[in-house]
C-alpha cells in the first residue's frame, strides 16, 4: 500500500494500535484534563479562602461540585492515564518487545477512557457529579466513571502482560529496568483495587437510578469514591515515580545501580502498602481507625526512606550528570518522603486528632504532587522516545523544583490548619493559610507550564537517540522509535544494564 501522508497521519493516529501513538494520546489528553482539574482546584481554593466554600466567586451549590471535580479528576482524568500512557510508550521499549501486549486492547483502553473522560466532564457541566441536582446527569457521571475505570483497567492489563510475558530473550524479571518493575507493581495494585472502584460505581448507578435505598436519595456519592484519594490507596499513584527516579539516577550516575534486589523489594513493599480498596466506606465505615490502616500508614515511610538511601549510595562518588530526570527523581522522592511522614502522623488520632481535617488534604496533595513530579521527570527523561526530541534541560530541571515548591506551599498551610486550627478552621482552613495554599497552587501551575514549555519546541534533524548514555534497551532504539521499536535485532541481554557493557567495549576500543 502506498503511503499517503495526508491520510497516513490521520489514520495513523485514529486507527493506530502502535503503543507509542496510544501512549502519546493518553499523555496529551491527560495533561489537558489535568489543566482543567488544576483550574478547578484553584477556583475552589480561592473561593475557600475565608474558610467557607461557595460564598465568593462560586455559587453555594456550584462550589462543592467544582471541588469534587478537582478531587476525582486528578487521579482518574490526569495522573493514572498520564502514567499509563508513559508506561505504554516506555515499558515495551525497556523490555525489548516489538509491541505492547494486546495492542488493540491498548487502543480500546485509550478510546474508552477519552470518551468516558469527556462524558465525565460533560456530566459535571450538566449539573451532574456526586452532589448534582439533575438526576440524569448524575447517572451519566456514574456511567462515565465506570467506563473510565474499566478502560484504565484494560490498559493496566496490557502494560502488566507486556512486562510479564513479552520480554525479549534473556531478560529475566530481575533484569527488567526499574520503571518497568514499578509499572508491574503499579498494574498489580490497580488490578487489585480499581475493580473495587468499578464495583461501587456500578452499585451506585443501580441504586441511584432505580432504588435510592442503599446510599439514600441525593446522598453525597463522592464519599464512596473518595478513598482513591486517601491513604493508603493514594500511594498507588506514586509507585511509578520510584521506578522512574531509580532509572534516571542509574543513568545519570553512569554506573550499575547498587543493590537492585533491595530496590525491587522496596518498590514492591511500597506498592503493597498502597492497597487501599478495603478502606471503602461501604465495607469498612471507620477504615481510618482500623489497626491495619494505621500500621500501613506507619510502615510506608520505610521503603521510601530506604530508596532515598539507595539513591544516595548510587550517587555517592559518582559525579553524576545533573539531568532533568535526576532532578525530578530526587525532588519527587523527597516530596514523597515528606508525604509519608505527614501520613504517618494520622494514626495518632487520640493525640493529634487529624482525621477529617485539612491535614488529610495536605497528605493527598503531597502524594499527588510527588506523582506529578515523577510524571514530569519521566516525560523529560524519555522525551526522545516519546516525542522524538530532547527537552530543554534548563526548563526540565526547573519544573520539578517549582512543582515541588508549589505542592509544599499548598500542603504546608493545610497541615498547619489541620494541626492548630479550632474545630471549624481545622476542617475549612485558616484564612491566612488558605491564601498561601492558593499561592502554592499558582506556583504548581507555573511549574507545570514550564514543564510543558520545555517539551514544546521544534524538532531538529540531529536529535540524539540516546542523550544520556543510557544503560537499558530503550536507548538502543531510534528517536522516535520505529514502528516495531527496534531497527534490526533486539540487543542481547546479559545483565540488567545491557548497554553498559557495549559502552564499556566502545570506550576500550
Amino acid at each position: 500500500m502506498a503511503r499517503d501522508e495526508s491520510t497516513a497521519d490521520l489514520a495513523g493516529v485514529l486507527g493506530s494500535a502502535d503503543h507509542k501513538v496510544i501512549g502519546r494520546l493518553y499523555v496529551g489528553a491527560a495533561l489537558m484534563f489535568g489543566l482543567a482539574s488544576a483550574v478547578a482546584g484553584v477556583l475552589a481554593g480561592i473561593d475557600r479562602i475565608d474558610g467557607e466554600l461557595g460564598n465568593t466567586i462560586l455559587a453555594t451549590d456550584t462550589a462543592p461540585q467544582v471541588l469534587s471535580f478537582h478531587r476525582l479528576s486528578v487521579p482518574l482524568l490526569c495522573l493514572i492515564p498520564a502514567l499509563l500512557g508513559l508506561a505504554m510508550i516506555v515499558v515495551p521499549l525497556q523490555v525489548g518487545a516489538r509491541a505492547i501486549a494486546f495492542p488493540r486492547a491498548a487502543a480500546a483502553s485509550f478510546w474508552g477512557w477519552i470518551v468516558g473522560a469527556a462524558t465525565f466532564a460533560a456530566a459535571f457541566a450538566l449539573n451532574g457529579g456526586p452532589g448534582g441536582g439533575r438526576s440524569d446527569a448524575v447517572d451519566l457521571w456514574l456511567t462515565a466513571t465506570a467506563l473510565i475505570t474499566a478502560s484504565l483497567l484494560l490498559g493496566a492489563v496490557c502494560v502488566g502482560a507486556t512486562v510479564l510475558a513479552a520480554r525479549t530473550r534473556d531478560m529475566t524479571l530481575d533484569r527488567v529496568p526499574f520503571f518497568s518493575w514499578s509499572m508491574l507493581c503499579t498494574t498489580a495494585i490497580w488490578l487489585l483495587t480499581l475493580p473495587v472502584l468499578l464495583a461501587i460505581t456500578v452499585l451506585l448507578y443501580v441504586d441511584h437510578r432505580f432504588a435510592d435505598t442503599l446510599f439514600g436519595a441525593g446522598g453525597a456519592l463522592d464519599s464512596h469514591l473518595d478513598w482513591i484519594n486517601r491513604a493508603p490507596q493514594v500511594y498507588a499513584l506514586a509507585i511509578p515515580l520510584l521506578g522512574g527516579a531509580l532509572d534516571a539516577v542509574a543513568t545519570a550516575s553512569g554506573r550499575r545501580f547498587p543493590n537492585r534486589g533491595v530496590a525491587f523489594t522496596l518498590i514492591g513493599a511500597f506498592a503493597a502498602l498502597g492497597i487501599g480498596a478495603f478502606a471503602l466506606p461501604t465495607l469498612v465505615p471507620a477504615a481510618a481507625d482500623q489497626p491495619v490502616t494505621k500500621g500501613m500508614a506507619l510502615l510506608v515511610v520505610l521503603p521510601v526512606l530506604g530508596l532515598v538511601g539507595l539513591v544516595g549510595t548510587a550517587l555517592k562518588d559518582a559525579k553524576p550528570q545533573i539531568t532533568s530526570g535526576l532532578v525530578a527523581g530526587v525532588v519527587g522522592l523527597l516530596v514523597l518522603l515528606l508525604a509519608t511522614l505527614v501520613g504517618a502522623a494520622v494514626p495518632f488520632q487520640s493525640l493529634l486528632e487529624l482525621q477529617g481535617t485539612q491535614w488529610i488534604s495536605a497528605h493527598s496533595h503531597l502524594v499527588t504532587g510527588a506523582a506529578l513530579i515523577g510524571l514530569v521527570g519521566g516525560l523529560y527523561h524519555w522525551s526522545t522516545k516519546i516525542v522524538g526530541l530532547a527537552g530543554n534541560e534548563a526548563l526540565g530541571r526547573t519544573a520539578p523544583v517549582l512543582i515541588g515548591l508549589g505542592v509544599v506551599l499548598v500542603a504546608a498551610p493545610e497541615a498547619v490548619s489541620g494541626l492548630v486550627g479550632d474545630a471549624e478552621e481545622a476542617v475549612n482552613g485558616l484564612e491566612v493559610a488558605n491564601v498561601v495554599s492558593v499561592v502554592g497552587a499558582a506556583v504548581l501551575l507555573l511549574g507545570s507550564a514550564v514543564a510543558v514549555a520545555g517539551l514544546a519546541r521544534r524538532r531538529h534533524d540531529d536529535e540524539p537517540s540516546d542523550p544520556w548514555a543510557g544503560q537499558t534497551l530503550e536507548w538502543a532504539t531510534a528517536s522516535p522509535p520505529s514502528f516495531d521499536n527496534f531497527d534490526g535485532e533486539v540487543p542481547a541481554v546479559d545483565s540488567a544494564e545491557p548497554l553498559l557493557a557495549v559502552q564499556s567495549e566502545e570506550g576500550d576500543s
Partner: protein
Amino acid sequence: MSAATLTHQDHEDEAAYDLVPDGLDPVPTRPRLLLVGTALAGAGIAVFFAALLGMYLAARHAVITGPQVGDVAPIWFADSSPIPLTPANLALATMLLSCVTMAWAVHAVAHNDRAGAYFALAMTLLFGGAVINATVFIYKAIELPVAGGSTAVAPLFYTLTGAHLALIACAMVFVTVMTLRTLGGEYAGRDREGIVAASLIWYLTTALLVVIWYAVYVTK
C-alpha cells in the same frame, strides 16, 4: 501470534495505517502472552466480584443484626419475595457440568479433534445459556422490585447476580471466539493457548457462581 513477540521486517506502509505488525517472522520469545493477560484480567474480575459480594454481605449483616421493627425480626429477603433454591441449585449444577464440557473442548482441541471440539463447545454454550435462563427464572419468581424497598436488598441482589450474568455472556463469547480461532489454525493443536485462556475465564465464572450460590441463595 502476538505482535509483541515478533521480530523485525521492513513494513513502513503498515506503520502508516496501524495497526499491528503482523506477518513478521514468528519468533516468540515469551509464549503464554494471552494466558498471562487473561489471568490478569481474571484477577481484576475476581476483585470486582469480591467487592460486590463484600458490600452485599456488609449490608445484609447490618440489616439482620439491626433493630427489629415492632414484633418483626429484621430479615433480608422479605417474606413476599422468597428466593427459590431449586433453580439456583440447578444453575450451579449446570455450571459445574459445563466445566466438564469445557475441559473436554480443551482436550479435543489439543488432539485436533475438530468434531469433538465443536460438540463440547456447543454443550458448554448450551449450559451457559441454561444458567442464564435459570437466573432469569429466579428474577421472575422472587418478584423483588428494584425501587421502593425498605432495605438495599434489591439493588445489591440484582447488581451482584446481574453482573455475573453479564460475565457468563462475555465468557461465552470469549470461549466461542477462542475455539474458532484455534480450530481456524491460529493456534496449533499442541499450542492451545487461546482455548486454555478461555477455559480459565470459564472456570473463574463457575467459581464465582459457587460463591454467589452459597452467599446469596443458600444463606439468604
